[in-house]
């Protein structure tokens, strides 16, 4: 039971199987992490609503429901609003970054990603720190 209390659950919401696999590869380097994948915003909302997660990695451009909508729904829900959110997207414009951060994302990373950087950010947020 105590072992499970130390484990962290991370949700990856990303429509590209290639990116999902790459992120899973990167996150698996951390110990005591359970990773759940969602293939679009709606799938992500379903999963984040029905289970506990310590962090969510969310893409912006996705079918059915985009990442920005998902972030605003998560932040609008009292029981979910504390989950740290990392946006991973191809959108590199400053206005896109500001929009995502203003909706409640904790960190904004652009593709192509550096696995090390993603890991550093995720570890910091899981510890409750602000990534530098």
């Amino acid at each position, binding site marked *: 039971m105590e072992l499970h209390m130390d484990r962290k659950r991370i949700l990856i919401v990303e429509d*590209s*199987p290639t990116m999902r*696999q*790459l992120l899973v590869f990167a996150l698996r380097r951390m110990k005591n992490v359970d990773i759940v994948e969602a293939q679009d915003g709606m799938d992500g909302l379903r999963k984040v609503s029905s289970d506990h997660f310590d962090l969510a990695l969310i893409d912006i451009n996705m079918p059915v429901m985009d990442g920005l909508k998902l972030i605003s729904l998560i932040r609008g829900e009292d029981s979910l609003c504390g989950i740290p959110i990392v946006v991973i997207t191809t959108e*590199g414009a400053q206005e896109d970054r500001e929009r995502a951060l203003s909706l409640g994302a904790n960190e904004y990373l652009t593709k192509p990603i550096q696995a090390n950087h993603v890991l550093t950010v995720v570890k910091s947020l899981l510890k409750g720190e602000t990534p530098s």
Partner: protein
Amino acid sequence: MSGDRKDPFSRGEEFLQLFSRGAEFTKELLVENERLRANLASLEQAQSDASKTPEEWDKYRQELQARLQDLEQECESVRMRLQQVEEENQQFAARYLEVEEENNNLANLYVASYQLHSTLDLDEVLKVIVEIVINLVGAEVFAVYLLDGDSGELDVAVSEGAEPSEFPSCSKPGGIMAKSLESAEPICGDPTQVPNLEEPIVCIPLFVQDRPIGLIGIFALLQQKDGFSALDHELFSVMGGHASTALFAARLYSQSERKLNTIQGFIDLLTK
């Protein structure tokens, strides 16, 4: 009570005895004190004599100098060892970063090749190629050309960032795409050039056993992508090899499926 009383004479005797014992004890103490004083004086004299002797002093100084030299050598060797350890530490840190980077690159390459060979459906393979070019390479405008079996030309099969009809023909004479197909090698131009749909920045020819079956042309990169890394060049090579075979296998599979269905149709017709 009266028994406890003694006469003054006997009490005086007792007092005298006590006094004489005290006097003896004091005398002994004085003798002892004198002996210790003499010992101390002789030791001080011996020490003083020893330090005053030049030989003794030299010997003492040499011993101290030798000890000092030993300590300095020890200090120097410790300092050198510390420096070595620091250098080793820096080398390990640099090596760790290299291994980390190598690990990341291998993960990217593994994922790319794994995904390319994860399906035998042509559309799925094309989708994977698009995902790799967007997410792993960081391209914004690009096209995947495939060989048209009827015309023998390379036509745009799938594109991002512009309509397929907007992309140039691969056979444009003197163009980078024609050169890339001739050499059967990926060609990588200047990533900082102003994006245009005339000439791609990167051309990745797709060959199977010396026969061109397609080409990936990247015309513009994502705005946050300012250059190509070693990983990008590796990815271009992986795409050139694995995307070609994946596309070829998918086409063969779809042709064999069609043929199988036709044959099955004939067999059904004959047996009914």
